[in-house]
């Protein structure tokens, strides 16, 4: 009677040892085949886990908060799988919920300013009265908001929700060549975006070199609240129309190279071109007289096309318990925006390789779009070619500092592993070229910049 359990325990232990050995063999096989050297091979788990024909689950919950402005909560889930025949699938679902105050583009003033919410049709404080189809008389308070002197004009009622789903499939067509197709659908109550992409990658030089080429096509439909304003029209006239569209195509050429046993590098060149309605329908520009008084507002007007070219270089290197990741990016677009981005992170594992900390720094700067202007002079031409006061098109520099902590959780039952991680980041944006305002605006902070924190909690298995 006592022999049976002993046999059973021994058999279980033997099966477990065999399972562990199998996983190690798979890992070793993958390593020998170099199956995870290139980005195109999409390894989000270790080699053994990726090839074990199981789903890999990755999830995160992010909380983003700008000082005095917008806050957002963003849950995100990613599922991926590598099949035995080399096919791969990766799917992602993201939900955003944003609320708070968003700058409307107008300039800080020494006087009280009154604005209409996007759904408003008048700057009057008088309530709107109308009769419903059932004959009922309804009176609604006017959707307006006021901004006190010295404060940045922000729409306090900003809120939005976004649901985004994407999927990517990798299909090997030979030992060295893989094709990839994907798509993305993103929905907001005032914006819908659909995109599709396809690409091919080929390995060379004993799979130490991977060349890839991808194409992307995106179509967006905008249905702004209250309608899309006529570009450069007088804000007080509420000249608004129906929905608008924009679309873009892009191409990317990538090179991934194994430099040595501990160093991997990637170089990408990409270009894309968007055309259609590229204005921000909620952004306006203050018209200022020489004394610094606001005489009115115009809706912004941007060019109908935009071409961007991006060069990106990333290096990843391991040294002992340290994994270093550094990247440089240069972007130039047809609106004369030029930007430089440098990002660096260092993951430091503990001796048992089950905990890590990862400090991150990022530095960014951009020049202004050639039609960016913080305000328009009242004495200028009534007709404007292109103009926007959106600070995202201004000259500024920004930095991010962050820290991530991760802990692996081993399950001794089935030898599986999961990871819990938490990340905190601080982002600060400072505007350059701070042209002083005329007259009474001198002394006011017209360029307040931006400060934000991000907290992210993640779990994957």
């Amino acid at each position, binding site marked *: 009677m006592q022999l049976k359990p002993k046999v059973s325990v021994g058999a279980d232990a033997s099966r477990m040892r065999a399972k562990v050995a199998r996983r190690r063999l798979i890992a070793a096989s993958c*390593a020998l*085949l*170099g*199956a*995870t*050297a*290139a*980005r195109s091979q999409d*390894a989000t788990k*270790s080699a053994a886990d990726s090839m074990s024909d199981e789903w890999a689950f*990755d999830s*995160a919950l*992010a909380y*983003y908060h700008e000082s005095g402005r917008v806050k957002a909560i*963003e849950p995100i889930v*990613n599922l991926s799988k590598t099949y035995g025949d080399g096919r791969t699938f*990766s799917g992602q679902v993201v939900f*955003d919920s944003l609320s708070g105050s968003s700058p409307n583009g107008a300039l800080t003033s020494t006087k009280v300013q009154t604005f209409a919410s996007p759904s408003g049709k008048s700057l009057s404080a008088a309530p709107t009265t109308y009769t419903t189809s059932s004959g009922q008389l309804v009176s609604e308070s006017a959707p307006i908001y006021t901004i006190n002197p010295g404060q940045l004009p922000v729409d306090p009622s900003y809120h939005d929700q*976004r649901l985004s789903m994407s999927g990517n499939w990798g299909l090997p067509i030979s030992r060295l060549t893989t094709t990839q197709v994907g798509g*993305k*659908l*993103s929905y907001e109550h005032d914006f819908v*975006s659909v995109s599709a992409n396809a690409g091919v990658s080929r390995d060379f*030089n*004993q*799979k*130490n070199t991977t060349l890839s080429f*991808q194409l992307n096509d*995106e179509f*967006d439909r905008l249905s702004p609240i209250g309608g899309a304003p006529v570009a450069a029209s007088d804000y007080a006239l509420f000249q608004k129309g129906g929905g608008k569209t924009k679309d873009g195509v892009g191409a*990317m050429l990538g090179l991934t*190279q194994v*430099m*040595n*046993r*501990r160093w*991997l590098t990637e170089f990408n*060149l*990409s270009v894309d071109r*968007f055309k259609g309605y590229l204005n921000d329908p909620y952004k306006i520009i203050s018209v200022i007289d020489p004394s610094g008084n606001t005489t009115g507002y115009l809706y912004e007007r941007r060019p109908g096309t935009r071409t*961007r070219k991006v*060069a*990106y270089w*990333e290096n990843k290197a*391991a040294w002992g318990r340290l*994994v270093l990741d550094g*990247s*440089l*990016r240069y*972007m130039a677009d047809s*609106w004369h*925006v030029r930007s*430089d*981005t440098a990002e660096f992170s260092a993951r430091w594992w503990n001796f048992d390789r089950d905990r890590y900390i990862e400090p991150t720094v990022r530095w*960014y700067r951009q020049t202004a*779009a050639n039609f960016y202007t913080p305000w328009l002079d009242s004495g200028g031409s009534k007709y404007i070619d292109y103009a926007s006061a959106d600070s995202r*098109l201004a000259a500024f520099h*920004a930095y991010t500092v962050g820290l991530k902590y991760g802990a692996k959780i081993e399950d001794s039952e089935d030898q599986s592993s999961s990871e819990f991680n938490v990340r905190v980041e601080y982002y600060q944006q400072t505007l350059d070229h701070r042209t002083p305002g005329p007259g009474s605006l001198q002394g006011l902070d017209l360029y307040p910049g931006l400060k*934000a924190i991000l907290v992210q909690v*993640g779990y994957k298995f």
Partner: protein
Amino acid sequence: MYRKSMVLILIAAAAVLASGCASLGVKPWQRDVLARADMQLDSEPLTHAIDDHMYFSKEASSGGRGFAGGGCGCN
């Protein structure tokens, strides 16, 4: 001046990579470190997705690692 230097560095890096690829790399049995999950270029897809969305909505630049589109009406 800085911008020209930046472009030259990127072009030089591409040229070095393109010309030296054949002599670079490792043998199949030397991929133990490269096969680790934390050595993959896509090892943190969600962190990248969250960061890309944040920067896309606050800056005029996006893309590089992937396509520049954002699928978001925030910019």
